[in-house]
């Protein structure tokens, strides 16, 4: 069990690096876009689109890490009124409910990839399956991380990070 959690957290570390890279590339793209528009007066039409698609990937990848660290915004009044052992049971239940949602996202996401395959994006001209794939991949990562949270709750109380969980 410990090994499984360790493996998932190792994967998360890599996802963290990918997230940082995606945000860095997005930042560079936006600067390039401003530069080409103003300075050399030759607006590129694909920079904005690529940045948008990177953002969509980073939202679903980042949500998986936020879930793992208990940082997704939730109303925690009920949990706070409970004893620690009951909190753990509630936490596992919440994760199981969440997994239902992620499975729907995964299954429907795989379906939509097939549907949009023939469509091509306006700027880059790539198949729309590529940006849409962010959702089923992200859903898969969220399922894996929910399992990590459940496994951890089975053995010890989940660390509370109230401070980080509410706002930016």
């Amino acid at each position, binding site marked *: 069990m410990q090994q499984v959690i360790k493996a998932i957290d190792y994967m998360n570390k890599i996802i963290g690096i990918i997230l940082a890279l995606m945000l860095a590339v997005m930042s560079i793209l936006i600067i390039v876009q401003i530069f080409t528009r103003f300075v050399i007066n030759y607006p590129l039409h694909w920079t904005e689109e690529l940045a948008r698609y990177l953002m969509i990937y980073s939202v679903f990848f980042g949500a998986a890490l*936020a879930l793992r660290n208990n940082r*997704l915004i939730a109303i925690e009044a009920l949990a706070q009124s409970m004893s620690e052992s009951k909190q753990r049971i509630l936490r596992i239940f919440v994760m199981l409910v969440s997994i239902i949602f992620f499975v729907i*996202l995964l299954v429907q996401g795989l379906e939509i990839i097939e*549907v949009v395959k023939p469509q091509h994006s306006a700027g880059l001209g790539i198949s729309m399956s590529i940006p849409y794939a962010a959702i089923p991949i992200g859903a898969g990562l969220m399922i894996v991380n929910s399992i990590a949270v459940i496994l951890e709750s089975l053995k010890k109380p989940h660390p509370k990070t109230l401070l980080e969980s509410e706002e930016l």
Partner: protein
Amino acid sequence: MGLILFAFLIVFFALGVPIAISMGLASALAIWFDGGTPLVVLVQRSFTSIDSFPLMAIPFFILAGTLMEFGGISKRLISFANALTGHFAGGLAIVTVVTSMFFAAISGSSAATTAALGSILIPAMISRGYHRNFAGSVQAVSGELGVIIPPSIPLILYGVSAGVSIGDLFMAGMIPGILIGLSLILTVYVIAKKRNYPREEKKSISEIWVAFKDAFLALLMPVIILGGIYGGIFTPTEAAGVAVAYAFIVGVFIYREIKIKQLLFIFTQSSITTSIVMFIIASAGLFGWILTREGVPQDVAGFLTGISDNPIVFLLIVNIFLIIVGMFMETNASIIILTPLLVPVAMQLGVDPVHFGIIMIVNLAIGMCTPPLGINLFIASEIAKIRLEQITRGMLPFYIVLVVVLLFITYIPQISLFLPDLLRK
């Protein structure tokens, strides 16, 4: 279908299922029970609601804010504010409000403002003999300026959701933000006089000049961001990108406070923080679609106008409602859920949607400083090492002031609309 949607939503919220997941799953279940609509619309709506260039301002403003937090900008802003206002009674507390106003003009979040400044200013105030409750509450209440003075992440969310110009909203937040800042300064001054809180040493003109030069690059940033947007040079998203580049260059190369090793942490954390907000937007896509299809906004409008079709009464109801929501709900989530429900009614009653956005933000910002769920209170009480009840006691005079200013902002639309109207001409 609307009934199923809200029933599930309330149950999931109450259980503590994350808001993004509650909204997505409740919507999916509503569609499933209803039949008729294929579930694949869930994924399609999630995708299209975040496939948006204006929303990309959010990751960039969050990243710029984190870069500034690590880049030594808070420190320099504090010394400059101290040189300007430190010598008044309660000098450090006034410095807290003034620095929060400066910081708010480069940061789009209240929690970031409270955390970045509070970690320096709250211990400083306590060591100068200020009461802990007071020190904590001054920082908590000043932090809310972070979302009112532009740039502001909740205002971006409101603008995208209500279809209102983000540039206009930013401009509209300026005077209300300054007004709240000034009334806080006045409150702090009166309390400090009464309790005989210390003054800081008065600085000479040349010392003020030195502090100004040191903080100059930080002070220039809002000029570039806001000037760029209103000068018609950048879109808000591009301005946010410029803010990132600027904060990066200043923090890494000029102030040299950000170490290369920290960059991975800064970028990863900013990206995760972005996901926390944008995951809700994605899930709210299908939610909003169902609401519109079921005519829920019309029902809400019918209900509210049934109570009274007088805009003055409507705005009073909205204010009370939003303060209560703000006490229990996180700001960004509240905006995403409530904007599509309330804005149509407001417009029907002749309230300007830009003005209405400011009313919503100011209300919800007050909620950040109220128990039981107020992020600024949590952060400030943690730094001041006091309990929530203690900091709340310190907040009482500020609540009164905030409500008075809120009523001014609600009933005098010109406070919000003067600047955007001026610029539109």
